[in-house]
């Protein structure tokens, strides 16, 4: 293969590779930072306007985070019966808030 042909082939391959470089949200899921929802705890809800898009978005995000956390604890307890028993003894029910 001549140098000229090789360069042309390389250019075509590079061109075809570009769309694959698009920013896909799933690429970030592994290193994704979790929301710190401690500011959304009970008493801090006072004064929040439930019609405010920011409040609605934060509630949605934190409810989703709590749901995921509860699901993972539940799954862990199922995998390890001892942990499940310990949680029941400590008064942790398996109920979790629905989002």
């Amino acid at each position, binding site marked *: 293969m001549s140098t000229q042909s090789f360069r042309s082939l390389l250019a075509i391959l590079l061109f075809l590779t570009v769309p694959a470089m698009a920013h896909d*949200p799933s690429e970030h899921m592994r290193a994704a930072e*979790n929301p*710190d929802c401690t500011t959304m705890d009970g008493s801090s809800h006072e004064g929040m306007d439930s019609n405010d*898009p920011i409040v609605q978005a*934060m509630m949605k*995000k934190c409810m*989703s985070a709590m749901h995921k956390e509860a699901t993972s604890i539940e799954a862990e307890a199922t995998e390890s019966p001892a942990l499940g028993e310990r949680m029941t003894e400590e008064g942790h029910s398996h109920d979790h808030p629905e989002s």
Partner: protein
Amino acid sequence: MKQILKVLLLMLVTGSAGFAFLYSGIYPMGADSPHTSLTYWALETLREHSIERASRTLVLPDLSSPDLILAGGADYNEMCSACHLEPGKRGSDMSAGLYPQPPNLTIPPFLHRVDDNSERTSNLAREQFWVIKHGIKASGMPAWGKTHDDQRIWAMVAFLQQLPRLDSAQYQILTARGNTEEAHH
């Protein structure tokens, strides 16, 4: 006839001077050397009117949707905050080094204007969409539309409408990528 010759001669001299200037290389191109105020005004006027004209006919979706805000927050944090900052940050290496300096999007856009109204806000949202999608020549602002669809760009615009009202804690919650996928469905 004499007048026409004079005008033609003047045009020739002006044109030659212009070309001589372009090829001389004396204009400073470094980002650390600001334009003259006349050049800056001309470029800014050209940019503002071009964006306003191009974005005029865009149809706005509902930008107050929590799902849209959440989707846009995560993208803003990863793609934009290095230059356009986040609550609690006054500058970054990128925002300090780029010229023209990227706008700090955590500051309300109409802070110094008394004629703030919803039409102006809608126009700003249309312009933001256009700028994110198409970028701006020779400014460091990329055209994200080459790799991102309109829905994702509108989500970033939705987030931008709320950004000036966010504090650091709210920003962290709305931009954390964790659980975003669940929030979409």
